[in-house]
C-alpha cells in the first residue's frame, strides 16, 4: 500500500507516511518555493502591515516605536542569503535618485578607486568586469554625462527584479567586501569567527584565516553578511548606513504585563555604520533575525 503511495510527489502524500529525510527535503522544497514566489525587491508598503505579522509584544512595541519616529514605509526583499547586499545596493542607489547628478559621479569615482583592490585580491579583471557592468551603468545613468533617461525608483525596482542584474550587483558587492577585508586584514582579522565545529577550521584552532573567511563567508553565493562584512562594505564605499534592529532585545523580564510601563519604554536599536561620512541620508535598513528589508520615512 505504502509502495503505491511512495510514487506520489512528496507534497501529495500524508505527512505521517514520510521519513524524516523526506520531511526535511519537503521543508526545503517549500521554503525554496516560498522564497521564489516573492519578488527579489517588493514595492513600498505601509510599515503598520508588519504589526499584523507579530503577536510578540516586544516586536509590536518596537514597530510602534518606529512609527512614532515617523518611519512609515517598508520595502520587503526576498529572504535568501543575499538580502543584506540586495538591501544595501538598492537603498544605496535609490538614495542617489533625488540628489544632484554629481553625487552619482562621486559615488562612481569611489567605486572606480576600489578596483585595484580587486586585482590585488586576485580576482580576474574580465571576470569581475561582468559583475561590475550593471552597477556601473546605473551609476553612469544617474550621473551628469548620461544620455540615457535618469533612473527612477520605478525603473530601479525593475532593474533589481531582473535576476541577472540583481545577481551581478550582489556578486560585485561581495567582491568589493572581500577585497577590502583582504586589503585591511590587520584591522579585521581579530574579529574573524568560525562556525563552531566547522572541520575546515579545526586545524587553525577554530578561527578561519582571512583568506578562508573571505572564500567561505563573503565570496560564496548566498552566504549572509554579518557585522564584519557590513562594516567592510560601508567603509569601502564610505556610505553612511544605519540598521534598525527589530529583535527580542530589551524586553522587560516577564513580558509586558499590567503595570509593566508604557510600550514607549521599548526603543529600537539603530546601529550606524560609517557614521563619519558627511551625508546623513534618510534611509535605513530594517533587520529582523536572519533578514534585511529597506525602511522609509
Amino acid at each position, binding site marked *: 500500500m505504502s509502495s503505491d503511495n511512495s510514487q506520489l510527489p512528496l507534497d501529495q502524500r500524508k505527512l505521517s507516511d514520510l521519513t524524516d529525510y523526506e520531511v526535511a527535503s519537503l521543508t526545503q522544497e517549500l521554503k525554496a518555493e516560498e522564497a521564489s514566489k516573492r519578488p527579489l525587491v517588493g514595492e513600498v508598503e505601509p510599515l503598520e502591515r508588519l504589526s499584523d505579522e507579530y503577536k510578540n509584544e516586544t516586536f509590536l512595541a518596537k514597530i510602534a516605536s518606529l512609527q512614532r519616529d515617523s518611519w512609515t514605509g517598508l520595502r520587503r526583499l526576498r529572504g535568501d542569503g543575499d538580502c543584506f547586499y540586495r538591501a544595501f545596493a538598492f537603498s544605496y542607489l535609490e538614495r542617489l535618485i533625488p540628489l544632484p547628478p554629481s553625487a552619482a559621479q562621486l559615488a562612481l569615482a569611489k567605486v572606480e578607486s576600489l578596483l585595484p583592490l580587486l586585482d590585488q585580491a586576485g*580576482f*580576474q579583471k*574580465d*571576470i*569581475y568586469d*561582468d*559583475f561590475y557592468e550593471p552597477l556601473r551603468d546605473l551609476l553612469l545613468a544617474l550621473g551628469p554625462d548620461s544620455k540615457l533617461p535618469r533612473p527612477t525608483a520605478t525603473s530601479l525596482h525593475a532593474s533589481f527584479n531582473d535576476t*541577472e542584474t540583481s*545577481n*551581478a550587483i550582489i*556578486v560585485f558587492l*561581495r*567582491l568589493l567586501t572581500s577585497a577590502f577585508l583582504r586589503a585591511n586584514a590587520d584591522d579585521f582579522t581579530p574579529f574573524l569567527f568560525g562556525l563552531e565545529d566547522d*572541520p*575546515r577550521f579545526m586545524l587553525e584552532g577554530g578561527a578561519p584565516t582571512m583568506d578562508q573567511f573571505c*572564500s*567561505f563567508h563573503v*565570496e*560564496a*553565493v548566498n552566504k549572509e553578511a554579518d557585522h564584519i562584512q557590513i562594516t567592510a562594505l560601508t567603509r569601502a564605499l564610505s556610505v553612511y548606513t544605519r540598521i534598525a534592529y527589530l529583535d527580542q532585545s530589551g524586553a522587560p523580564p516577564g513580558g509586558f504585563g499590567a503595570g509593566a510601563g508604557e510600550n514607549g519604554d521599548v526603543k529600537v536599536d539603530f546601529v550606524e555604520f560609517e557614521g563619519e561620512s558627511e551625508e546623513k541620508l534618510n534611509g535605513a535598513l530594517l533587520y529582523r533575525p536572519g533578514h534585511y528589508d529597506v525602511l522609509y520615512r
Partner: protein
Amino acid sequence: MASRNKRLAREVADCQKDSSKSGITIRLVHPDSLDKFVGTFPGPQGTPYEGGTYEIEIEAPEGYPFQPLKMRFITKVYHPNVSSQSGFICLDILKTSWSPVFTLRTCLVSLQSLLSTPEPNDPQDAEVAKVYLTSRERFDETARYWAQVYAGAPSSTSPNGASESEGGEDKQGRRAAQLAGIDWGIADELGAPWVVRFAEMGFEPRKVVEVLQLLNYRADNRERVGHEAVLERLFS
C-alpha cells in the same frame, strides 16, 4: 543567458591559449552548445597520480556563474573524495562554497589540487578513505596503479627492481585486487595466483575475493573445498 554564454565562450578560448603551459584543456561536447564540456588536467607531481591525465565531465547549469558547475571524474581515480564507482566528487566549492568568480579552469585546478591534498575526514568514498587513513603505503600503491591503468601514467620502474616475470602471478593477483579497489592484503593472503586464475575466467575480482573468503579457500583448505565449489558460488 547572453552573458553566461559570452563568459563560457571566453573561458574556453582563454583556456586554449595557455593550455600548453598549464596542461589543462577544455573542449565542448557538442560544438554548438555551451552546456557540456570535457576538461582534462595532468595528475599533480609528487603524488601517486603523477603522469596520468584525468578527464572530467563538466556541466554548466543555466544559472552559471551564479550556480555551481557540475563536475564528475570520467577517468577512474582512487581517492578518498572521489567515488571509485561513479566519479562523483565531494568538494565544498562545487556545492555550498561556490563563488561566481570560479571558472571552468579554476575548478579544474581545484580538482588537481584536491588530488594532492585529500580530505579523508570528509570522504566521498568511505572504503578508500579507510585505506588512506589506515595504510598510506597500500593507498599510494593502489592509487598509482589506477593512474597507470586508467589515466595512462607510465608504469613505474618499480623501486625494488622486481620485474614482471618474477613472481608474476603474485603481482598480477595484487593488481587484479587493486583494480577492483579491494584490499590486496586480503587477496594476497588468499593466494594471489588463485585470485588471478578465477578473475581471468571473467569473474569480477571483488567477487572472487569475496567468495574465496567466504569458503575459506586458502592453504591446506583449498583441496578440501575444491574449485568446483568456488565456481558454483561465482556463478550463483
